[in-house]
């Protein structure tokens, strides 16, 4: 295995984050703080507890999930799209690195950044609410699996996209609505039918539910179902990425 190759890609991607620290870390932290101020303090003070949890605390897993998803996707998609855009991808294609090694480098870096950000969001939340984490190990499992899965998804997006619009259209028009409609800021019990049933077709609901369970032991769907969903999604993405590299889709002519 080309360990040096994996490390080169990983370090290169992490260095990109250091160069864009404000955009990568500071901006999401400020946005999250605004969410806490608006939803947690202003609106939350007028909402009763949700499933026995204060509204401010209830939205923490949803906020973490929102940041994990959007950042995993944007980090990984930009990581592979930019070399394609400027032409430096020739170097990776001509290097002695396998598909798996490329994935480990790019996706590993994107997931690392998303996990670091998730933890920073968690710490930020601690300034606004009294944090309780019932299952910290499971919380980390959910955070890691989500970051990995959506980094893989972002990687696919970056390979598929051949312009900046395509790069942003999926996160903006698909992922963000799914997160907002996936019970991040409310319990689906609060929705009338048929929207409550429709919500169960939203895959993000399973992620938010699983992560929320690791915090407060409350969930909208079974924890095992949540875990199974994220694992199925992750292996599906892995299979697609592997296929894309094997066939050279939009990379090798």
């Amino acid at each position, binding site marked *: 295995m*080309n360990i*040096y*190759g994996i*490390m*080169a*890609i990983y*370090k*290169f991607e992490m*260095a*990109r984050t250091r*160069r864009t620290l404000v955009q990568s870390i500071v901006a999401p932290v400020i946005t999250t703080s605004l969410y806490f101020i608006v939803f947690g303090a202003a609106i939350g003070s007028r909402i009763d507890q949700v499933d026995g949890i204060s509204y401010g605390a209830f939205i923490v897993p949803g906020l973490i999930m929102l940041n994990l998803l959007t950042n995993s996707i944007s980090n990984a998609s930009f990581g592979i799209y930019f070399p394609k855009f*400027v*032409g*430096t991808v*020739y*170097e*990776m*294609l*001509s*290097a*002695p*690195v*396998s598909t798996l090694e490329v994935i480990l480098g790019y996706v590993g870096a994107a997931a690392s950044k998303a996990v670091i950000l998730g933890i920073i969001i968690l710490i930020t939340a601690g300034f606004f609410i009294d944090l309780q984490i019932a299952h910290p190990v499971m919380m980390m499992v959910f955070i890691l699996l989500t970051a990995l899965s959506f980094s893989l998804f972002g990687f696919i997006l970056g390979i598929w996209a051949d312009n900046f619009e395509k790069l942003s259209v999926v996160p903006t028009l698909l992922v963000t609505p799914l997160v907002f409609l996936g019970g991040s800021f409310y319990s689906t019990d609060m929705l009338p039918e048929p929207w409550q049933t429709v919500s169960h077709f939203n895959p993000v609901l399973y992620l938010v539910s699983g992560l929320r369970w690791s915090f407060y032991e409350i969930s909208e769907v079974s924890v095992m179902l949540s875990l199974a969903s994220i694992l199925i999604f992750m292996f599906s993405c892995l299979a697609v990425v592997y296929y894309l590299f094997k066939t*050279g889709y939009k990379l*090798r*002519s």
Partner: protein
Amino acid sequence: MKSDENPILRITALNKFYSGGFQALKDINLQIERGEILALLGPNGAGKTTLISVVCGIVNPSSGSVSVDGFDIIKDFRKTRSIIGLVPQELTTDSFETVFNTVSFSRGLFGKPPSPSHIEKVLRSLSLWDKKDNMIMTLSGGMKRRVLIAKALSHEPTVLFLDEPTAGVDVSLRKDMWQIVRELKEEGVTIILTTHYIEEAEEIADRVGVINNGEIILIEEKDKLMEKLGKKQLILDLRDSLASVPDSMADYNLELSEDGMQLTYTFNTQRDRTGITALIDDLKLADIAFRDLNTTQSSLEDIFVNLVEESS
């Protein structure tokens, strides 16, 4: 599996069809010996970059085989790619990285452990050491070209592909590049370069290949090529104007200039007799006097243009 010690690069019956059916490479067969400099000449769209890209793993071949140092480029891609360096045609660089970091990145990507001393050696040899902490976006085009060469040399390749390395660089820098190429050859690196500049091939290549419409139409040692296909001409400046070439001299196929003041005789240096002595004797008999004479030899550029025109 390693199949053969020599040559360093063997291309057999290589074809490349792009989607849409365009055939960029047609049954290419080529062997490149260790330590030589091969210049691949060809007009735009001839297939030069496609050929390089296939060998380097950037473009998938449609059929045929390519081996580098005896290893197949697909089955043994790790081995072949780790000994190949590529300098692309376009100035594609990571604008926001520093010179040192981007060259170090390339070394790692090609599976080599960090070696600041080697990176320093490469950067010094390319006069880039004083720019090591500069962001690439602040460098001139010529310096960026050097950075690309440094990246290609970072993992100590034994085969180096230079895809139009001096395109768009000034004459001084071009000569510096040629010097770099010569030094690499002295270190035992095999170099395959594509170029539009015939003088570049004439200056540094050991062998010259001409590719047109995806086919290699010629591959020959440069000196032999010049001897074999190079024409020599004897140009005579006449004392008095001639209306036409006398019938008695028709066998010489002389060309008369429009003003009738110059006669041109084309001869082959490979023949035992060039016919020059007989021509001068016959001119005397025909009472045609000349004031001056000189000879010219066709350049590689003339040969290249003739070959491409013939094959098109």
